[in-house]
């Protein structure tokens, strides 16, 4: 029996379950044609089995010992079958495949979007009045279709990524107070100190978003907070920290440019829990965060300055109460705001480095 299953590689878990259902009806997978998306089955005795699909995954002997049979190998894909396995193949390959496709898709759309809309928009500008209306409609329609496609694809990948990363995220339940803190991530030292101050005042952080901090009444003697930045993470990242006793209070849930905020309660007199006890590694953690802050700061300030500069050079008065004038003022405010955050970030970075050098890591 042959069955076609389009887009199966975007529904790995569903496809595995589907193959398992086929097996209970006596249809056992014997081959897969990747080009035609056809699954080829053979009729035998019905059986309860488990299927696992892997992609670009190194062959591991342990899987064979655990009863996994490499039933079908098609290019980089392997379809594993087992009856009662004690271990499972890693999903790392599938995760990397999704991640690659997601960021490839983002790059392509960033280039394609202006390219697709530009010809249509210029057409609208140069068309005569009677042909104007249909073109406006066509442009809008094309844009709507593009945007829907882009966002639905992005949403899909994001969902897959989040699921494979296994983020267990806590929502604030008993929030006592809520505090706004813009750009907290860019000044980790100050933020951590502020969190300790709040703790001393009887408020323990329960969860955080990009802008807000939610505090509950303090329930632990002491809490250690860590603010982390990673260029790239894999599914083991959250797992290892959580197993070690860290509680996830905020994360960007992305596998690249990942940000996170962690907490671990401890008793006074005990060693302060830390993400690393190695001084060199501690410096690395800080450097990573500081580099990211510097990059974002440079890009933002460059763009803001350019947009303010362009207006000034075009001979407009600096202060004006039209659209351009107000945008310019807002941009200037934003530049000042970012400068303040960045200066505080540099100060915090140097202060923390000094403290580490003096061996005074215990303040966290």
């Amino acid at each position, binding site marked *: 029996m042959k069955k076609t299953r389009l887009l199966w590689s975007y529904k790995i878990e569903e496809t595995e379950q589907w193959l398992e259902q086929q097996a209970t009806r006596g249809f056992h997978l014997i081959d897969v044609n990747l080009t035609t998306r056809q699954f080829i089955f053979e009729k035998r005795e019905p059986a309860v089995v488990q299927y696992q699909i892997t992609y670009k995954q*190194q062959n*591991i002997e*342990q*899987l064979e010992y655990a009863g996994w049979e490499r039933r079908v190998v098609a290019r980089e894909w392997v379809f594993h079958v087992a009856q009662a396995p*004690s*271990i*499972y*193949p*890693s*999903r*790392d390959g599938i995760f990397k495949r999704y991640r690659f496709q997601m960021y490839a898709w983002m790059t392509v759309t960033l280039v394609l979007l202006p390219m697709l809309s530009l010809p249509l928009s210029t057409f609208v500008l140069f068309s005569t009045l009677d042909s104007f209306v249909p073109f406006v409609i066509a442009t809008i329609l094309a844009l709507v279709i593009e945007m829907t496609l882009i966002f639905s694809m992005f949403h899909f990948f994001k969902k897959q990524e989040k699921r494979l990363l*296994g983020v267990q995220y806590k929502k604030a339940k008993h929030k006592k107070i809520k505090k706004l803190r813009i750009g907290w991530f860019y000044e980790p030292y100050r933020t951590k100190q502020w969190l300790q101050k709040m703790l001393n005042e009887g408020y323990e952080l329960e969860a955080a978003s990009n802008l807000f901090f939610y505090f509950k009444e303090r329930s632990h003697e002491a809490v250690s907070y860590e603010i*982390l930045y990673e260029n790239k993470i*894999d*599914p*083991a*990242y959250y*797992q*290892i*920290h959580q*197993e*070690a006793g*860290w509680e996830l209070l905020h994360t960007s849930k992305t596998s690249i440019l990942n940000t996170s905020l962690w907490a671990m309660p401890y008793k006074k007199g005990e*060693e302060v*829990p*830390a*993400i*690393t*006890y*190695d001084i060199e*590694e501690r410096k690395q*953690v800080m450097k990573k965060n500081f580099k990211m802050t510097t990059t974002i700061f440079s890009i933002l300030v460059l763009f803001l300055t350019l947009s303010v500069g362009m207006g000034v050079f075009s001979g407009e008065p600096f202060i004006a109460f039209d659209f351009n004038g107000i945008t310019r003022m807002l941009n200037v405010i934003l530049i000042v705001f970012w400068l303040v955050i960045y200066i505080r970030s540099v100060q915090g970075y140097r202060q923390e480095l000094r403290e580490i050098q003096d061996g005074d890591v215990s303040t966290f």
Partner: protein
Amino acid sequence: MERILKKYNPMTETAFYILLSLTTPKHGYGIIKSIEQLTNGRLKLGSGTIYGTLTKMQQDGLIQVYGDQDRKTIYDVTELGMVILQQEIRRIKEVHQHVLQYEEALDEKD
């Protein structure tokens, strides 16, 4: 292979203990616990240290991963990992031998 052998000669103490503990497969946290026990609490590793080292070792092919019943990642040493572990053990044995030699000499001086 040559490059990897060189890269891990010598190993850092952290990397050595992580690889040593993985001669029986473990979760990330299992590694932290077993090293703490083995060294009587002298070597306490943070989860960031473990994550960083494991990622590098996985890239270099020293360890491999699979999931347990709950799909939690288990780490296991590979054949290449064993070769590197043995290389390091030989090195430490040599160092140990030298320590003993010089200890005797130092004792005689006293």
